[in-house]
């Protein structure tokens, strides 16, 4: 009996000392797999993977996806879903380009981007949290509306011809010591776009929000168990409302970053971005059921998604269908891994 008691106590102790929560465990797995993938690519594929510029290219191309995924991660932690983000991004790009081309100024265009995002967030958040309509349907309608408005503004692609904006687009952060020598002997510094800085700023702000601020902790509580969150005195409706507002504002920011990257508005901009963002969040260890997740994981999720595409291209599978087939395969791998790992842990806890 005594031995059993001691064992029990021991197991309780280890449980109490358990260093990793579900969130941290899933995030660690993602980061490890990403590192392993990148190192293997460096060893076997060489080529571009040996240059630091490859990483910066990935960041430059995906700055807006990172921002959108951050917003989606918050919504998903709260137990909801927002599939309007890609369409809002596209609408913001189109309206800002049209505004700038009709002689607007840059400061107002930024406000316009934020305003559109905020408006979508407010309306969708109100409908979902205060009128208790299913989030999927509301944000689906938001997606239809934003896509429709984009084509109403212009069916043809619009190129931004604003002088000040062109100058802003040219601003790039150069890091000489990470550059490489071109064939003619000139040093080509590593280049990073302004959008990446914005993306990192968003990442840090949301990381702090989720980790150390009451509102952020409330998202976890609400997503984990809405009933007990209510009992703890959390204003669940307001918290849910705010999660959609934040996601909306971030899609606005993402739209502006997208415009700085492409410099043109097009009705097909950011097509399928919402699903890419959901995939990034899932790979990063966010569960759609809510309560588990972290933006740092999401960031590595985005990078993993991009890296696998680059690896497919540079390993010689040039047919157009291989990229998405491997992406699907990888998604399957991560989803199964999470399910198995979490299932195993839940069993262990019960025992």
């Amino acid at each position, binding site marked *: 009996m005594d031995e059993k008691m001691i064992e029990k106590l021991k197991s309780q102790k280890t449980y109490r000392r358990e260093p990793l929560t579900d969130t941290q465990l899933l995030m660690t797995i993602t980061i490890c797999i990403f590192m392993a993938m990148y190192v293997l690519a460096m060893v076997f594929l060489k080529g571009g993977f040996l240059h630091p510029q490859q990483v910066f290219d990935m960041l430059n191309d995906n700055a807006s996806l990172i921002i959108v995924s951050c917003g989606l991660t918050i919504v998903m932690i709260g137990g909801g879903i927002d599939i309007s983000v890609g369409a809002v991004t596209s609408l913001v790009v189109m309206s800002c380009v049209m505004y700038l081309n009709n002689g607007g100024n840059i400061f107002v265009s930024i406000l316009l981007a934020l305003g559109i995002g905020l408006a979508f967030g407010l309306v969708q958040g109100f409908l979902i949290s205060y009128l208790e309509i*299913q989030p999927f349907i509301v944000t689906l309608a938001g997606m239809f509306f934003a896509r*429709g408005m984009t084509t109403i503004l212009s069916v043809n692609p619009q190129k931004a011809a604003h002088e000040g904006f062109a100058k802003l687009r040219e601003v790039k952060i150069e890091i000489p010591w990470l550059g490489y020598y071109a064939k003619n002997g000139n040093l080509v510094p590593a280049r990073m776009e302004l959008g990446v800085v914005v993306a990192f700023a968003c990442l840090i702000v949301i990381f702090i929000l989720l980790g150390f601020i009451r509102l952020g902790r409330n998202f976890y509580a609400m997503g984990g168990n809405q009933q007990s969150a209510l009992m703890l005195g959390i204003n669940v409706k307001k918290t849910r409302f705010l999660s959609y507002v934040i996601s909306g504002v971030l899609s606005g920011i993402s739209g502006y970053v997208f415009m700085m990257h492409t410099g043109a508005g097009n009705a097909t901009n950011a097509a399928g971005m919402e699903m890419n963002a959901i995939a990034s969040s899932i790979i990063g260890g966010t569960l759609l059921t809510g309560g588990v997740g972290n933006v740092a994981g999401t960031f590595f999720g985005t990078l993993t998604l991009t890296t696998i595409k680059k690896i497919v291209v540079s390993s010689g599978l040039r047919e157009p269908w291989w990229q998405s087939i491997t992406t699907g395969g990888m998604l399957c791998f991560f989803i199964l891994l999470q399910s198995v790992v979490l299932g195993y842990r839940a069993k262990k806890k019960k025992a």
Partner: protein
Amino acid sequence: MSKKNDKKFSLNLGQLTIPIIAILLLVLFNLFRDPSFFYIGIAHNNDGNIVLSGNLVSIINGASELAVLAIGMTLVTAACGGQDISVGAAAAIAGSVFVKILKSVPSINGFTVLVAFVSACIVAMIFGSFNGTLVAVFKIQPMIATLILYTCGRSIAYWINGGATPTVDSPIITAIGSFIPGIPIPTPVLIVVAVAIAFKLLFHFTSLELFTQSVGINGSAARLNGINATFMKLLSFILLGVCVAVAGSIGVSRLGLINHETLLLDVEMDTILAVAIGGNNLGGGKFKISGSIIGAYVIQMLTITLYAMKVSSTDVKAYKAIVIILLVVIGSPVIKAKFAKLTAKSKFGQPKQPAKGAD
């Protein structure tokens, strides 16, 4: 007046209130706008057959794929409490298989078309059971599980097609896609009727409906009562696979070619919408297939109405969104409760709370 009418409906129809109100509103709107919208004519098509034509016919014909998919999606929604977002991609795969088989046989006749359709069915059921296994065995949220096939499904179709958009040209395929000689009703409509009757019979002779509902309402309670919840979830995805194959084959037959990018594009969103407009709870549980079918026709009627108002096909989405939001706001529990309170207070209202039964 109209309020009183609405209340009557909600008393009698329960779950079907919203879809029927939506159809009535659309009909009324079109009557005021242009009564000739409802004109049904008789015309001769290119082959010289006598066929029906008009907006109503094109609504009922155009919603065929959506209606078939909505039937399967309702089952999945009811059993699993989530939606399959890969139906469009899976339909592209099924369509590709259908065309691939027809291309590989020397002559296209009734038998080979049947063989091609059965193969498409089998492939779609395999993909359905893949999704189903992830959901039922590994307990992954349906939307996440089907995100995998959503991501890569159209690429797999592209792969099967060998990087091209192959065409099939045969009178049988044309007959499936448009009209059978001698019958003035479009063939896809007949197929929808056949599928609906098949499901009605299935529900009548098996306990599928009851079992699906009980699994959706409370999976573990259903299991304790001896229902194999895992199998029911898997079965719902396999049945959706059959619906997907039917929809994919109709879509291919309409155009006589398979284009992996555009075949049934964005149909997954419309299908989920049809299920929601049909008054089904997207969280699982009780369901009504008839609601979803009416929901599919509501969506198509809305689209055709907007086309008739000279809205361009790319802009339709924005107006559709507004109507959807209006519909779901009317149907939202909070608004229903307020409405019920108001009618209870007023003299004419009955003290019963009709809104409660509807959700």
